[in-house]
Every structure is written in structure tokens, then in C-alpha cells.
């Protein structure tokens, strides 16, 4: 049951990512009103996610060599 739920969640995320990519490309071709606002939100989300992922390879302490 748990596995099916996870699979379902991943499917939904996959569909959402697909839709977003489609919207970005179609939007970029035609520059519909609000495309930049939407892209700004997606960009912030992207950096949020990336910094979260990269925090895995950080360790506590002062930045040094």
C-alpha cells in the first residue's frame, strides 16, 4: 500500500514537472502575459530545491580549506 502511494506521488510529481516544462517552452515561444512571473516562481523553486539537495554535501563549521 505504502509503495503504491509513493508511486502515485512520484507519478503526480512527474506529470507536474512535465506540465511545467511544457508551459515554459510554449510560454517562451509565445510570451503569454505573466510568463515571466510564472518563470520567476519556478526559478525560485528550482534554487530552493537545488540548495536543499546540495546542503547534503555541506558539513557544519566555518568556511575554510
Amino acid at each position, binding site marked *: 500500500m505504502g509503495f503504491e502511494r509513493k508511486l502515485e506521488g512520484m507519478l503526480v510529481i512527474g506529470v507536474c514537472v512535465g506540465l511545467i516544462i511544457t508551459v515554459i517552452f510554449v510560454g*517562451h515561444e509565445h510570451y503569454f502575459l*505573466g510568463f515571466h512571473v510564472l518563470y*520567476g516562481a519556478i*526559478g*525560485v523553486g528550482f*534554487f*530552493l530545491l537545488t*540548495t536543499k539537495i546540495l546542503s547534503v554535501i*555541506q558539513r557544519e563549521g566555518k*568556511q575554510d580549506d
Partner: protein
Amino acid sequence: MIDISSIPNIPPVLIYFAGAALIPLLGKGKVRKIYLIILAALGLIGVAVLRIDTTWEFSVSGFELIFLYVDPLSRIMGYIFAIIGAAAILYSLDVVKENGEIVCGLLYLGSAMGAVFAGDLFTLYIFWEIMAFSSLGLIWYSRTERATNAGMRYILFHLFGGCALLAGIIINYMSTGSLTMVPGELGIGHFFVESGIGYFLLLIGIGVNTAFILLHTWLPDSYPKATLAGAVFMCVFTTKTGVYALARTFPGAEAFIFGEGILFVAYMGGVMCVYGVVFALLQNDVRKLLSYHIVSQVGYMVAGVGIGTYIGINGGIAHVFNHILYKALLFMCMGSVIYATGRNNLTELGGLAKKMPITMITCVIAAFSISGVPGFNGYVSKGMVIHAAELSHMHILTLVLMLGSIGTFLSFLKLTYFVFFKRNDGIKAKEAPLFMLIPMCVVASLCVVLGVYPELLYGILPYPWVAFHYHAYALGHTIGTFGLLMMTALGFFMLQFVFSPHERVTYDIDYLYRKGGRGFIWFCESPLVSFAVGVEKVVLRIADSFVSFGKNPLRGTRVMIDTMGVALLKPFIFVFNLVIHPVYKYYERDLEEVRMRPVEEMEKMSIGSGLLLILLFFALYLIAMLVHGWLA
């Protein structure tokens, strides 16, 4: 009225090199300050009077070298180097105490000028190397262990890049027979570089200075450890000279992947753009954050040059010009903050807006410029590069470059907020000295002027007629950019807790290089040294036996015969025991006996007798050969 054309065209490198040579004679007082101000002004005049198509050529061992070549591309680079060089010199007046540091700064500035005005690849290479060594001084003058180590890594990287560049130049010369960088009728960058290993090595050599991803790690490693004034010099010249060399050699360069030509330099620019921003967002050290942003911003320039169209090259070079202004300003602002507070981490800073108002205003201007806010210079050149990508139907690259804008704005919201606006009552600071503030204010005003009136810049770009067709403030583009940035700002303030700084160590790809480097040193120190010691022992034993043989050849011959006898007979003892064993024992005993006895030197002959003996043997040999010939 002064007739500029009557002033002789002197290579700017000579002005700065001569200026650096005189510094040690001036002491550290007011005379040095006045001298440096005059030198900065002379440098500006020297570049301003340079006329297009001026050349200084000379011949060395049959090679035609061009020490000075002026065209629109080298001229715009010269202008911005002279402007920011003057600003950096002014900024140094109060901060720099040691003459050596100023000398390094001037040599660095001069060699960067030499590189951009070089008309051939060999002259470019010479100045390229001088740049690397003089900038090393700016790191080492910090006089800390961290700076010393970072400096070593920096110079190792640049020596690697220099070797690749030199090898590329030689291979290219062997295949094309030409060293020239003077463009033909087709325009900038359209001189012949033959594809192959030379092409690849040239790209690697230039890629190190341009901080291509995987070759970029020297930059965020060394710049934060340079001196305060040194960082202002360093953020300008090395990477921008790399972009200049890229514009000369690889505009619109294609790689054939699966049979299809791909503008890989342009896409490398896109990768640099996002990679730099992502790592900048993770930083706590203000100058490390700015260093990662150099990687990102150079990405826009590389993308523009990599697209290779007239508008692309214009955009890339315009971004070089604008970036130098706002990036130097950012390093000056953060230098002032560190100078005033003694702190360089975002977690330790805050609340400086009221204490350092001029630094705050200039920093906000620089932050708006780098983020591409309309009305500031970064908006114009960044827009030009993105427009070039759109016109070339490179949709993915366009989106990546726009993504870079979002990350940049996020990052600078973080920097300005946590340095100036976040509450911190425990910090004591006062505004930076006047000589630091003057160049900051001048450069900040240039950022605004070039943002409001970009036509000033268009006129000096490599292809001005194309630049004037670009409308930076087209309504749709301006509103779109505002929308993008507003959404980013909203996202930052909503998710501030995520983007807030932490005292953390971030690993970049250099972690792997350092691991590899340590492994290499272990290999050299352990297995390689053991092998060398083993080889040395064997060689010494052989030498010993030769010496012993030389002292007493009779004894030596006996030892040899006995040793061979023992070695040859030993395997057969068990098979033919009765016959072999006594003989084997004889050799063994004899060997022991000979070895036990001390080496007695034989009676030495005089040289003449020795020669006579040799001649006698030689005569006997000739007689034998003669007899053999007759018999045959």
C-alpha cells in the same frame, strides 16, 4: 584644443610597467599617493589616445610579433581596464601599506593590458604568464597560511593552463604557419584555428582563465583570500582577459556531437551561469559569494561569445564592460565592510545600513546592476546576450540564462539584506575612508549612467551598427524583467529561512582534485620513493663490484668464476650428487676464502706502459684479422 592624433600611441603596458618600477623609490607617504594618482591618470590618457589600426611590430628570430594592435575589441577592453585600474589604484591608496603589493597590482594591470593589445598568440602568452605570477603576489600579500596555500593551488592551475595554451599555440603554428591574431576581412575572431589537438589545448588554456566548469575551482578558492585591494584587481583582469581571448579565437565554435554541430562554448556559458549562482547561494563568506558570481556572470559573456553572431559578441563584450564595473564595485564595497568591521561572514554581519550609508547605497546599485534590474547597466548587456540566444533559436540556453538572473537576484537580496539591513546591534563600524569611497561612488555612477543611457556603450562595441538596433527598453522586455524580479523578491522574503546563511563548509569539485592531489603525493612519497631507494641500492652494489674489480682484476675474475660456478651447479646437486657436489663445494669454499681476504691492490702500471700494452693487444688483434682474411 589638444589634437589627440598628435600624441604618440604608446602601448599602455609600458606605462604601468614603468610606473611599477619606480614605486620602490617613493617610500610609503604622500609622494607615493600623488604618484599613483598621476599614474592612474596617465594610464587612462594612454588608452584614450590609442587610434584604431595602430600597430607596433618587431621581428624576433624570424617571427613577426605584434606588441600593440588596436581594433574596436581591444580598444573597449583597454578602456574598461584603464577605468577600473584607475579606480583600483585609488582604492588602494589607504588600504595598501606595502609597496610590493602595489607593484604586483600594477604589473597585473599592465600585463592584462599587454594581453588585450597583443596582436599575436605568442605575445598574448607572455603577458598571460606575467598576469598569473603578478596576481599571485596579491594573494600572498595577505600573509596568512590559508592565502599561501590557496596561492599555491592558484599558480598550479594557471601553470597547467599556461602549458596547455603554449602547446596549443605551437601546434596551431605548426599546422597553420601563423601566430597572428589580427582579424581578416570577416571580422573579429575569424582567424584560422585548425581543429584537432591544438584547438583543444588552446581551448583548455583559455578555459582555465575563463573559469570553465571543472577548470573554475582556483577562482572561489583564491579570490576570497587575496588582500582587500588585491581582490578588486583580481576580480577584473584574469577572467575578462580569458573572455577576450575566447572572443578572438572561438566565437561561435562548434563541436560535432552525433554528427551535429553544437555551439558548445555557448552551452558551457549556460552551465557556468547556473552553476556559479547555485554555489553562490550556499556561501557565508561575502567574498566567496562574489567569487562564485564571477563564474556565473562570466557564463553570460561566454554564452554571448559562444553564440558567435554579431549581437552575441556585442552582448558578451558589453557584459564584460558592465560586469567589470559592478563586480569591482561589489568587491570594493565588501572590502570596505571587512575593513570597517573585521568580519567577512554573513552570519556575523548586519545592521550596517545606517553606519555605512555610502557603502550601502553603492552596494545596492551594484547588486541591482548585477541582477539586471532595469535602469542599471547589467540589465542592458544581460538582455543583449539573452536576445542573441533568442534570435539564434537557442531556447534552452535562453531559459537557462533567465534562470541565472533569478538566482543572481536571490543571491544579492541575501547579500545586501544580511550585510546591511538585518538587525545586529553588537556590530561597531564607521564609514570607509575617503579614498575608498571616491572610486566606489564614481563606479556606481557609471553603472547608473550606462544603464540609463546605454548608447554610450553601444558606440564603442565591436559592432556598433548592430548594437544600435537593439532596444534595451522595449516595453515587453522591461515589464517581463520586472515581473521576473518581483516574483523572485517575493519568493526570497517568503522563504528567507531557507536562503539564510549558515556556518557550513561547501564542497565543490575541488574536493575531488584535492583528494586526487593527496593520493598523488602519497604515491610519490611512498611507493615511488621505495622503488627509487631499491634502484639506488642495486646501482651502488654494481658500482661497488666494479670498483673492487678495478682494484684487483685477478681477484675479481676469481670471484666471478666462483659465483657463476655456484649459481650454475646449485640446481643440479640433487640430481648428480656424487659428481657435482665436490665441484660445487670447491667453488663455494673458494668464494668464501676469496671474500674473507681483504682486497689487495695490484701493482699499478704507469700510463705509458698501459698504453703500450693496449697498443700491443690492438696490433695482435689486427694481425689476427689479417691472417683470418688471408685464410678466408
